């Protein structure tokens, strides 16, 4: 049985050779042993550059926002289960046309973080074997999600008092250098002109100052409410290790509790903040 890398190369080669796609986005070997890098493969000969292993942590769906890919008639993209969830979000919000993208899904037993640990998303993973795809590489992997993995993270912050929570984020956001790597890495941060770049009026102060950092980080999380599929791309990209996923997870919990909605599952579903119910929670409004 050929391994996942071989199968990915084979499918990509076939697609590129018969003109099914103009290019395939995937991972290639990185600059050192436990790194991979994104690669855009445009010809069948180049397909051998593609790899898949536990270091393929990046979510490549963020590249679908790029004009170079948007301009293509059809593009192939290699996607793990978690990446497929963000692609479903993009299709749901009409950011990607389903028939313009060929999904080369790959079954995934889990990836590793830079420090060698297993990400929360992998411990909680329900989509080791993606079910939304055009072709799939790899033998199916049975999911064995730890139902508490996500909530365990939140319990740390739930246990803090109001002042402690404020202090916690005050310290964390103080590290922010406003590089916007979180935004760039996020497949669902889709605005071509981000609110942080608008200066008439200047909603978010752009210098790395506590008040501006607070606004930026809150608004970034808020704009992903009901949309974030918890792929952890933002947190992985953050050069100063701000636990951004804590905010995203807290919002995901609220969306699940209040609107009974989980993103990244149904490309036909209406996003929870684009709709409402007459009996939505009204208890906090005077």
């Amino acid at each position, binding site marked *: 049985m050929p391994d996942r890398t071989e199968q990915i190369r084979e499918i990509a080669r076939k697609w590129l050779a018969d003109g099914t796609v103009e290019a395939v986005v995937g991972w290639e070997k990185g600059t050192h042993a436990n790194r991979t890098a994104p690669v855009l493969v445009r010809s069948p000969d180049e397909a051998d550059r593609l790899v898949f292993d536990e270091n393929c942590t990046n979510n490549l769906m963020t590249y679908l926002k790029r004009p170079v890919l948007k301009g293509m008639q059809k593009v192939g993209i290699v996607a793990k289960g978690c990446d497929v969830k963000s692609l479903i979000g993009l299709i749901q919000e009409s950011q990607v046309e389903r028939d313009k993208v060929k999904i080369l899904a790959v079954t995934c037993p889990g990836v590793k973080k830079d420090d060698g640990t297993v990400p929360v998303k992998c411990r909680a993973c329900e989509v080791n074997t993606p079910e939304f795809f055009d072709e799939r590489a790899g033998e199916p992997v049975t999911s064995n999600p730890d139902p508490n993995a996500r909530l365990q993270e939140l319990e740390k912050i739930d246990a*803090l008092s109001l002042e402690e929570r404020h202090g916690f984020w005050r310290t964390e956001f103080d590290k922010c250098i406003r590089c916007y790597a979180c935004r760039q890495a996020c497949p669902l941060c889709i605005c071509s002109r981000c609110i942080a770049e608008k200066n008439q009026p200047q909603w978010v102060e752009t210098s790395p100052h506590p008040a501006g950092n607070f606004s930026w980080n809150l608004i970034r999380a808020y704009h992903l409410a009901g949309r974030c599929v918890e792929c952890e791309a933002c947190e992985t990209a953050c050069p100063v290790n701000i636990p951004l996923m804590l905010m995203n997870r807290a919002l995901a919990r609220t969306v699940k509790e209040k609107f009974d909605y989980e993103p990244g599952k149904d490309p036909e579903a209406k996003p929870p903040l684009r709709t*409402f119910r007459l009996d939505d929670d009204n208890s906090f*409004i005077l």
Partner: protein
Amino acid sequence: MEQTSSSVPATAAAAGWEPRIVAFICNWCTYTGADLAGTSRMKYPANVRVIKIPCTGRFDPLFMLKAFERGADGVLVSGCHPGDCHYSEGNYNARRKFTVWKSLLHTAGIDLERVWFSWISASEGGKWVETVARFTETIKGKGPFSAYREMIDAG
């Protein structure tokens, strides 16, 4: 206003400190309700600064953050009761936004007693007066929003 961030409510009140409250209210219901309070010669605390928005659906959480950045001690968002929206469903959409935004503020360690939401109709001038009065009292009890002030003054 010369307020140090360490002010406890008692000393703040003693120093003649008055809270600054920003109210984002919808054109069709709460604004008209506030207008009714005025034309009915009802009195309410002058601590509230009213900013009219076309609908609570227009409310953007950035408005609130900006208000706090510019020194607000409390923010009130108010509009038409469910079912009464001039645009049919603006307030229903707003309610969902409030729900997630409030939960994010909670996680971020912002005191939710400084953030109020209400539905006040055009005929509820009394409810406007009562809400603003109660909110002002609450903020007076809590003192200046020193946790936010500290972020503005830092660096």
